[in-house]
């Protein structure tokens, strides 16, 4: 094994698994008992889809552009990731939103959409309304003698419109109030108004063909009656008028429905067709074939709806909403043959297909994976490897960048940073977006082109755009995004990327502590302990300006702080030439920057280029990458019993060329990924 300078400080990340873990590299316990390899694959608790998985799954299931989970509550994170089964819980609010989403998705999938309707309500008292008599009151218009009330509308397209007036009257005399409703001076309906109070006011509607453009809705009052001697007064009162249409618009196309409706009820019968549609969609939504009773349950819903006056579409819509609200959709269900048995058993074919697809795509399996599961092929290492390589080449593998690397490298944090506008006037939304895209493109290049992951730390070239080129002081690429030699700017690898500098800074200054902590926890899996009380914050002394480095060095004079900061801070100092938004600087608070760092074993480095070389050569780095992706793939924290699996996985990855695909294959073929056990 290569030399690890951190070995003296902490257990290596493979083994620093849990408090009190005392497993050794060969998989033996301290008492020398060697665990049988593949003895205990562990178990993953029933896991619900997280927000990204939900949205990706409905995208791939239905082809919808809706992203309902964006409105769901945030997922909590554990061990650095938001897909950890034990942590993903369901509150009543979740179920409520699952139902709303299921109804919205099922409606979209079954409806024949009409043109956007023109839909306007004009209160009679509003200023654009005119009349030949009477007056506007707080919330109605009083036509107190015979006359007309005019409300302007402007319809966008030709078609049949419903015009409505809400009316009541002060009744008096021998007759009811007599009114008419019409448009552009033409009476379309004449009627008695019976209602006498606003609460009971009545609605009168006419339907009329209108051309596009402005029109006037008119209400007439015909039979005013006034008998002051007896205090009798008949007035017509208008609450509001409205227009809605066109009612005769032709339905537009719905490709989601076209894909869903694989049969024609006219030709094979309603129930046979409904059964086919529901069975197909549920098999994909639940990511496994359905039992006969399960199909029967969904068909029963369809039948109940159509027996209750619903149409064929109503029936399919309601049953589809049940498919999407079902626990078999919301959760990734893996069933133990013996829920209390300690024996490790292989996952079912379909369960394994889902593990693969949610690992690499954060989404459901595609047709090819389903086919492999159906053929029973996924129990074979070579087939798993073939599938993994195929899936990594698929555009859906972008989920590894957005979800896995987004959290591992803190790329997601870029969106939430608020650099101080006075300290960093150059920062804007465009620079933020470019920073994020640079990091995403960089990570994606390891998934896509399979370059060694040591280059995450040592790459000489990076893909940037013109904005970043200006920010970095290098020649811009000839295309919008292009590879540029960054070594003159001393920015090789992720350690030189402005997005990383941003997410590890405070709004007004850099934080060598956060940067050192990021290196330790994200690249070396050696998270420092949280600080003792009363040490948060650095003293800003305006009268005696100091560099951040000087202030931190004072702080480390305290032995209580030194124990952790002696490790963290020197790593962070290597970044000191990059300010809080990653701009190169030679001075900090008027003093020259010193980016010299030193390791506990005495090796020194200057700047992030040299730090990157040191880290890339350290076996802790590859072990840590293995551990991060293992956590992500399984949705659980590594346990002491995982040590033999992690050693095996890292053997293939870390002792090789550090290729991402090798790591993904090693994890996907590991018994920890392919097997599970009950809970004794």
């Amino acid at each position, binding site marked *: 094994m290569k030399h690890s300078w951190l070995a003296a400080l902490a257990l290596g990340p493979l083994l620093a698994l849990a408090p009190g873990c005392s497993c050794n590299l060969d998989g033996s316990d301290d008492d020398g008992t060697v665990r049988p390899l593949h003895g205990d694959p562990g178990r993953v608790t029933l896991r619900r889809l997280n927000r990204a998985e939900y949205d990706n799954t409905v995208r791939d299931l239905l082809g919808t552009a809706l992203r309902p989970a964006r409105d769901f509550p945030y997922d909590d994170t554990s061990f650095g990731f938001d897909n950890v089964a034990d942590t993903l819980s369901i509150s009543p609010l979740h179920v409520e939103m699952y139902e709303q989403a299921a109804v919205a998705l099922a409606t979209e999938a079954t409806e024949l959409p009409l043109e956007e*309707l023109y839909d306007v309500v004009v209160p009679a008292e509003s200023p654009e309304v005119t009349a030949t008599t009477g007056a506007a009151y707080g*919330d109605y218009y009083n036509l107190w003698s015979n006359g007309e009330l005019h409300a302007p509308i402007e319809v966008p397209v030709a078609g049949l419109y419903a015009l409505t007036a809400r009316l009541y009257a002060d009744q008096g005399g021998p007759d009811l109030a007599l009114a008419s409703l019409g448009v552009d001076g033409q009476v379309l309906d004449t009627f008695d108004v019976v209602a006498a109070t606003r609460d009971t006011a009545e609605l009168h509607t006419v339907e009329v063909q209108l051309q596009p453009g402005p029109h006037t809705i008119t209400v007439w009052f015909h039979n005013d009656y006034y008998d002051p001697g007896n205090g009798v007064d008949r007035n017509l009162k208008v609450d509001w008028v409205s227009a809605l249409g066109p009612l005769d618009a032709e339905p537009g196309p719905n490709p989601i429905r076209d894909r869903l409706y694989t049969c024609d009820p006219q030709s094979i019968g309603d129930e046979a067709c409904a059964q086919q549609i529901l069975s197909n969609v549920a098999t994909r939504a639940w990511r496994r074939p359905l039992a006969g009773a399960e199909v029967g349950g969904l068909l029963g819903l369809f039948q109940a709806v159509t027996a209750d006056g619903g149409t064929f579409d109503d029936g399919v819509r309601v049953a589809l909403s049940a498919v999407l609200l079902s626990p078999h959709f919301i959760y990734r269900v893996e069933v133990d043959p013996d829920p209390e048995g300690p024996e490790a058993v292989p996952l079912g074919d379909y369960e394994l297909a889902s593990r693969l697809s949610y690992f690499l795509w954060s989404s459901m399996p595609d047709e090819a994976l389903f086919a492999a599961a159906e053929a029973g092929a996924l129990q074979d290492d070579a087939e798993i490897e073939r599938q993994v390589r195929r899936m990594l080449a698929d555009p859906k593998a972008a989920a590894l960048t957005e979800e896995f690397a987004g959290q591992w490298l803190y790329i997601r944090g870029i969106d939430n940073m608020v650099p101080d506008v006075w300290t960093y006037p150059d920062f804007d939304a465009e620079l933020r977006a470019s920073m994020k895209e640079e990091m995403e493109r960089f990570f994606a290049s390891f998934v896509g082109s399979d370059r060694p992951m040591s280059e995450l730390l040592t790459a000489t070239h990076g893909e940037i755009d013109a904005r970043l080129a200006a920010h970095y002081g290098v020649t811009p690429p000839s295309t919008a995004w292009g590879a540029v030699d960054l070594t003159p700017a001393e920015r090789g690898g992720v350690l030189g990327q402005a997005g990383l500098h941003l997410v590890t800074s405070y709004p007004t200054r850099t934080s060598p502590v956060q940067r050192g902590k990021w290196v330790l926890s994200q690249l070396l899996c050696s998270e420092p302990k949280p600080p003792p009380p009363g040490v948060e914050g650095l003293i*800003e002394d305006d009268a005696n300006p100091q560099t951040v480095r000087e202030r931190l060095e004072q702080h480390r004079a305290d032995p209580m702080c030194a124990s952790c900061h002696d490790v963290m801070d020197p790593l962070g100092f290597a970044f000191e030439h990059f300010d809080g938004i990653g701009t190169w600087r030679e001075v900090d608070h008027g003093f020259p920057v010193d980016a010299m760092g030193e390791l506990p074993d005495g090796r020194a480095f200057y700047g992030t280029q040299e730090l990157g070389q040191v880290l890339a050569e350290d076996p802790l780095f590859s072990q840590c990458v293995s551990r991060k992706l293992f956590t992500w793939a399984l949705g659980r924290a590594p346990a002491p019993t995982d040590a033999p699996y992690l050693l095996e996985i890292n053997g293939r990855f870390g002792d090789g060329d550090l290729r991402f695909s090798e790591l993904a294959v090693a994890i996907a073929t590991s018994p920890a990924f392919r097997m599970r056990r009950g809970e004794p």
Partner: protein
Amino acid sequence: MSFKPHAKWWTPKLAKARGGRLSAPSRRAFLGGAAAAITLPFLESLRPWGQAWANGHPPVRLVYYYVPNGIVMNQWKPTQTGPGYDLPRILEPLLPVRDHVSVLTGLANRAASVPVAGDHARGTGSFLTCATVTHTADAAQIQNGISVDQVAANAIGHETLFPSLEVGMSGGAPVGDCDSGYSCAYTRNISWAGPSTPMAKMTDPKLVFDRLFAGFDRTLSEEDRARRERWRASVLDTVTDEANTLHRRLSRSDQAKLDEYLTGVRELEKRMQSGFTGECYPSDPPGLGLPYAEGVRAMNEVMVKALECDLTRVVTFMMENAGSNRSFDFLGVPGAHHELSHHQGVASTLESLAVIDTWEVSQFAWLVERMNEVVEADGTTLLDNSLVLFSSEISDGDWHNHDDLPVLLAGSGGGHAVPGRHIRYSSEQPIANLFLSMLQAAGVNASSFGQDGTAPLDLT
């Protein structure tokens, strides 16, 4: 009064043209928002259950208003006690509502006083539980107490459509741990249904509005609506059957996860069976994607409407999450909130903090004013029948202390409190005792709360 009861006027053709749209049309929304302040009388018809109030009195409502990072206390504390207290700089926005707001000084949340770092997370986790949270970043190891709003919701929540409402302005930090090894669950949630069950909050006022008010499709006839409810009930029955069948095949911890789902489905069924028809439908849904300050205002307005329509009687609001580093550049303040709160006694930093604190109090004052405008059936105001608490997870940003907390209490709680005073408590008076008083005012039978709430404060 701009409410228009909707009559049955949708012809089948119209209903079809409306095409099963989910959201109800808002009459005023089409007009570009004639923002008439609605003052809704407490009509019996608005009640979900169609029952009369006990004794004909409106019920007591409880609101908890959280702001992060403490307060500059020497610009907060009045020097005079009793009514007509003086208003130091940060409390100046209370001027128009001073008679309705009490300042309570000297209260402490001792459960949060533990000598390790992470006071923001711990103080926020304990904010309404008055229990010491476990120090873990692993969500599976979380332990807290039940929060005061959830104690109230358990006791009186069944009388409203929503037992409680949890809202705030920020979802959460997307990466990293949240505060010195404390789980993000502590920094993002003040409402806790149980020791390991934070109540997820909603952070977009438009979505909260839709959840409260837009679930009722007014484009349907009564008959169509009833039919849809029957279908919806069948769906819930079907998924419940599926979950129960699955439950029998799972191990213990898997069953525990599935129980969360079943609980949620049962809540939906209960709400559906309540017979609520959504007559209390306000105008002017908030816009989507509002800037922060407008979002706060919109969220507070939605809170008022939820209380006004008696959709819930218990509301928690988080202005931001614990230790928030939000930038307040719209107030002309440089820097970020948490960073600033470590003020080190520097005058310019304290000035920036005081500007932020004053703005926070002005938002609270606006909420109090709005609640005071809403007139209930018996002529009292919503504020008269509410107790609205304002506080933070710590007192001073440098010290991170959990005693001498900044506390405001607005409203009369249906006669259980006399507001408009500065009350100075002796040092270390547990804030849990104030929570106990608030519970009792709402008719909750409680004799203790949290770790140290045993003697309710006399607020009259």
